[in-house]
């Protein structure tokens, strides 16, 4: 009898220590980013666009690099972040990230635009409500979001039109940076779906304006 009890305790202990085999997490493929969203960043890989520094008519070429990267995320990030409870992720999502980097042929700022179709997953940590599908814009001190669809919110406003270098551009997002520092920062940034970067105004009054040949 003692031998039986001992074996039973040993068996239960082994089960407790090793645990039950977990369920294989589900993987949901979110597919590719829809074409209508890709069109909100109007640059192609290898393309060059030009910004003109207003004070001296210096024209700076920006070389575009654009790639789509496959990525994977899970639905357990929130729990892990707060460190209270970390369940095994039950669902993984495969999604695409579209990354556009614009590098100047001059020692000034890069411009980076990035968005993904992770918003299609309700519980993914990249999730944003469908009314706020947004792209990230990074440039020097500026970090901003602009909508892939729908109306802008937060620090972003929509201008009907703006005139730059003799051209009129319509439906332009205006990003205004209100912080101040001793450095020279971006004060406002102008962008639209058709042309991309249209103008950048610096805190010291310098301006970089889209240059298009006639």
């Amino acid at each position, binding site marked *: 009898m003692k031998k039986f009890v001992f074996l039973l305790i040993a068996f239960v202990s082994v089960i407790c220590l090793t645990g039950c085999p977990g369920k294989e997490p589900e993987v949901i493929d979110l597919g590719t980013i829809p074409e209508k969203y890709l069109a909100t960043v109007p640059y192609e890989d290898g393309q060059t666009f030009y910004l003109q520094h207003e*004070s001296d008519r210096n024209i700076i070429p920006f070389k575009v690099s654009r790639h789509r990267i496959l990525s994977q995320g899970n639905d357990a990030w929130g729990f892990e972040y707060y460190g209270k409870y970390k369940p095994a992720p039950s669902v993984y999502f495969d999604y695409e990230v579209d990354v556009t980097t614009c590098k*100047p042929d001059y*020692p*000034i*700022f890069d411009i980076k635009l990035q968005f993904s179709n992770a918003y299609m997953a309700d519980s993914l940590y990249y999730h944003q409500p469908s009314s706020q599908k947004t792209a990230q814009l990074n440039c020097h001190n500026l970090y901003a979001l602009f909508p892939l669809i729908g109306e802008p919110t937060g620090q972003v406003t929509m201008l009907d039109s703006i005139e730059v270098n003799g051209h009129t551009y319509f439906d332009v997002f205006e990003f205004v940076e209100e912080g101040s520092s*001793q450095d020279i920062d971006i004060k406002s940034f102008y962008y639209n779906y058709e042309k991309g970067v249209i103008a950048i105004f610096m805190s010291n009054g*310098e301006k970089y304006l889209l240059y298009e040949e006639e």
Partner: protein
Amino acid sequence: MLLVAFTSCVKTKIHYVDNDLKVWFVDQDKADFMVRDQNDIVQVFHVYDTVTDMIPGSSYFLCFETNDDLCENIHQDGRVTYFVGDALRLSITNYYETSTHFSLYFYDVCFTIEVADDQFSCSECLDDRALVGTVPCTMEMLDSHEVNGKSYQDIMHFKITDFDAISSRNTFPSELYYAKHYGPIEYELGGKVRCLRE
């Protein structure tokens, strides 16, 4: 017995950086300044105060430790608009009175300057960003150099002659004038953008 005698005599010796070298750090009243390039694009430098560390080490005689050494290292960092990270770092260390490590990082390169008998020399610099070894350069000491109508005294003038390295990046300095107490007063990036201190 002999071991006990030696170890009991171990003293702490501090090797300080020579005061004559400290003049190459940027004075705090000159730490914020602007540079303007030939196309009128302006950038702002901010140079932080110096930081002093003591690097521990030991001296030996016939395998016996004779000193607990502390080698003084003074360094100073600075940043500039648009450059990610520190664009400037001057680091001076006195190693056991036998050698002084004098390194000047500027944008993508690090000039390692040899100091001997109050003479400075530098024949190559490290491409700090590409991590692919050294690039030949020249260095001369100038009594003075004028920038934007202001005359600066005691200048280190570096010039890099490897055109392929220079033309590869806009953050690669092809020339630098560095003044005592002031730091960078004039430089050229990528072989084409010349910046002058205001």
